């Protein structure tokens, strides 16, 4: 990942590489209150990631729940090679991608790059003068949205995205270009 992890609380998130900080260590030993501290510190960033990748509040909240349950189950595998924020972020991406793959519609979009809904029109058929980035992201097909979020917002490389999503790097690039073009039409008509 060549980018950055956004929005995590420095107080809990930024341990040095190779060092597991006290809160994480206590959570690894089964301290639920320590794990709650991790949740409080990292859930806003996790929500942002999930919200941008799936597009709706309800799905994003469900995914945040799933991510932190998975984190609890796997926390003992965290060895401090990266920051806990980076570890959680990668875990979150994987959980979201699993969810997208489990949805037939989104899986098809992820593979085939359906661009039928690309364009500048809102669901109501009106042309928007200007909408914000998150509102525009919602209008992208799942596959294009996923690649754009992972590459341009979260900073993953095409090779990393290909590895995570199971699509070819060339397909990931094509999805990214389509997503950017659609966003440019939506954001700067």
């Amino acid at each position, binding site marked *: 990942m060549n*980018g950055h992890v*956004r*929005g995590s609380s420095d107080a809990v998130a930024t341990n040095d590489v190779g060092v597991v900080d006290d809160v994480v260590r*206590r959570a690894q*030993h*089964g*301290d*639920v*209150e*320590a*794990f*709650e501290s991790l*949740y*409080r510190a990292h*859930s*806003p*960033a996790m*929500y*942002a990631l999930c*919200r*941008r990748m799936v597009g709706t*509040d309800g799905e994003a*909240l*469900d995914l*945040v*729940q799933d991510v*932190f*349950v998975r984190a*609890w*189950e796997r926390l003992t595998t965290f060895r401090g090679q990266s920051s806990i924020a980076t570890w959680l972020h990668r875990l979150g991406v994987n959980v979201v991608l699993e969810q997208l793959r489990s949805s037939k519609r989104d899986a098809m979009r992820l593979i085939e790059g359906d661009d039928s809904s690309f364009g500048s029109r809102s669901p109501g058929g009106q042309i928007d003068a200007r909408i914000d*980035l*998150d509102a525009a992201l919602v209008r992208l097909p799942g596959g294009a949205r996923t690649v*754009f979020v992972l590459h*341009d*917002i979260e*900073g993953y490389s095409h090779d990393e995205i290909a590895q995570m999503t199971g699509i070819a790097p060339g397909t990931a*690039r094509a999805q*990214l*270009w389509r997503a*950017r073009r659609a*966003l*440019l039409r939506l*954001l*700067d008509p």
Partner: protein
Amino acid sequence: MTDTQVHLSEEERHAIADGSLPGEQAVSLEAHLRTCEACADDVARIRTLMTRARDASIVAPPAALDEVWPSIRSRIEATKIVPLSPDAIRRKGRRRARGVGSAIMMAAAVIAAVTLAVRSNRSGREPTTANNDTSSLIAVADSAHAYEAEAQTLLNQLELRRSMLRPEAVAAIDHDLRIVDSAIAELKDAVAHDPNNPALRRLLASSYRQKVDLLKRAGNAG
């Protein structure tokens, strides 16, 4: 690609905007941009979008994010229990309400596991000394205190509703509460004997959670 009469391809425009091209090729394309206003404008628009994406502020978390934690806590406490039958303890997928009957069956299964674990632990094993993490002990004590307080509140509510419940439901609830309380008492005793045993502490936390769950479901019973 330096001919201003031939515009950059879509791939080249995105690649130059990304900065993902090798040096020599990038220099060639940058030279084209200096002489081709159309390509330069388009690459500038892509770069602006990328900057906007990188600088995108955190999505404002909804208030509901705070309400997610209790569900997470409930699920992670459930993962501390060894399932005795498929779907008995930890359901995958979204949660839905269960009747008192299934709750009682689940509680009984867990209690059986607890009792077996306590008896097994007492049958000859030395107290665990590997984990002397006092902070974990304090956290467990705090957690137990929180569960006890919540259980007491629910018990008080149950007492108020007791006269409105069917007699057989009351009998079943009382029966299972006695079993849960017995399991908790055994586990407290075991933890006092072997305070650094994480498995016992987890079982104690699980049995507290079972009691709270049982009381909550009893509160919903008609």
